[in-house]
């Protein structure tokens, strides 16, 4: 492997001091992207900081109607969390859809966000949950909506010297259902051809809130504002969902790549959207 200096951060204070001293250092957590990217020459870090020993970045804390998840929480921990399965099924399902169990045991939520892949599986789930990020540097902290953090493929709003410390979102209510769906070439170890997450809130059969996010269909994960606006205050039925799904084209701009053609992606996008909305709606009442 390309050789680099590595420093092991002992705790959060040490990490922030290391980042203040070397703002361009590359942060390493689960290393499941880091090692292949360095091997492939895509990343050539001079200095890397291992943060896996920073205990302050681990754990999941529900409080005041919100849940806060440390950036070092692994995909296995997300998919195995009874709390998330019950309250935010889309996130648990998305985490379970990533790679394979050996990689999920190491790969972190913070890494999945900061790698900024347009095909990241947990990002659409976090979009529809309304996730915000807590970013720290030695001078203090700032909060940013996840949607403002992801700028383009591999590009984020992370500033030199900053670390993603935690991800938080409001815990969905009992009238809400969330779901995630992935289309890959195979069940495991597949980067998504496309993925989707939905949030649906119903009141007496009427849609009071709806969020739909699609991945791998644009340079970043996108929210489908036209679908969401169309469904607001509509009755929850097959006809309104089918009509809304055609509006995904206002949000997506798929490309040809090694996994699928743009035309294939355009063909499946409304189907995926419709199915994930149906699944989210079906979870209402079963989710809290």
């Amino acid at each position: 492997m390309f050789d680099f200096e590595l420093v092991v951060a002992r705790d959060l204070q040490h990490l922030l001091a290391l980042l203040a001293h070397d703002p361009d250092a590359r942060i390493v957590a689960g290393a499941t992207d880091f090692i292949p990217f360095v091997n492939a020459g895509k990343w050539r870090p001079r200095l890397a900081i291992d943060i896996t020993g920073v205990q302050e970045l681990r754990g999941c804390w529900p409080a005041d109607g919100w849940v806060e998840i440390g950036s070092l929480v692994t995909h296995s921990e997300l998919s195995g969390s009874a709390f998330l399965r019950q309250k935010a099924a889309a996130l648990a399902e998305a985490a379970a859809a990533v790679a394979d169990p050996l990689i999920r045991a190491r790969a972190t939520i913070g890494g999945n966000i900061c790698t900024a892949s347009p095909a990241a599986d947990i990002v659409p789930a976090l979009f529809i949950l309304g996730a915000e990020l807590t970013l720290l540097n030695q001078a203090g902290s700032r909060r940013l909506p996840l949607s403002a953090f992801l700028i383009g493929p591999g590009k984020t709003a992370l500033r030199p010297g900053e670390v993603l410390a935690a991800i938080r979102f409001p815990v969905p209510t009992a009238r809400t259902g969330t779901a995630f769906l992935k289309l890959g070439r195979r069940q495991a170890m597949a980067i998504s051809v496309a993925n989707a997450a939905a949030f649906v809130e119903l009141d007496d059969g009427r849609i009071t809130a709806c969020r739909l996010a699609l991945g791998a269909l644009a340079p970043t994960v996108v929210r489908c504002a036209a679908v969401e606006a169309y469904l607001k205050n509509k009755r929850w039925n097959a006809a309104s969902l089918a009509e809304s799904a055609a509006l995904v084209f206002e949000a997506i701009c798929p490309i040809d790549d090694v996994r699928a053609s743009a035309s294939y992606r355009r063909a499946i996008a409304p189907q995926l959207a419709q199915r994930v909305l149906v699944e989210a709606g079906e979870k209402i009442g079963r989710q809290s």
Partner: protein
Amino acid sequence: MSTHTLSITVNGHPYTAPVSGSTTLLEFLRDTLRLTGTKNGCAEGDCGACAVIMNGQAVKSCLVLAIQANGASIETVEGLHGMAGSLHPVQEAFVEAGAVQCGYCTPGMLMSAKALLDANPAPTREEIRTALAGNLCRCTGYMKIIAAVELAASKLEMLR
């Protein structure tokens, strides 16, 4: 080049050795400890030939920096054994079920299977398929491998 001191337990034996920051756990096991049972297949996390058990959890050792395993307990295929020098029941089951063709994927398959059975002694077929989803066999012997893990579960059940 940064050098770190790695303290690690491998198959019950404690080791302390210098490692560079860019050394992977796989390279440390094979090149420093000469435990070459763990295989280097793709070196980018796709194939699972390098699977080892780290603190009870199967991981791909090519995707772990050696220094990230500081203080960890690692099990490799060399640490598998049954009673009185015999094979471990998971290994016996692989032999009896004919789950080995060329054998290159076998150490990784064994470690993923052992980690599964340690955590879940009576897995369903679906749970076995999920646990082995990150281990590729290019001889396409998956059905016999899954049958071997089922056989291993019944062998371990009889030993309890």
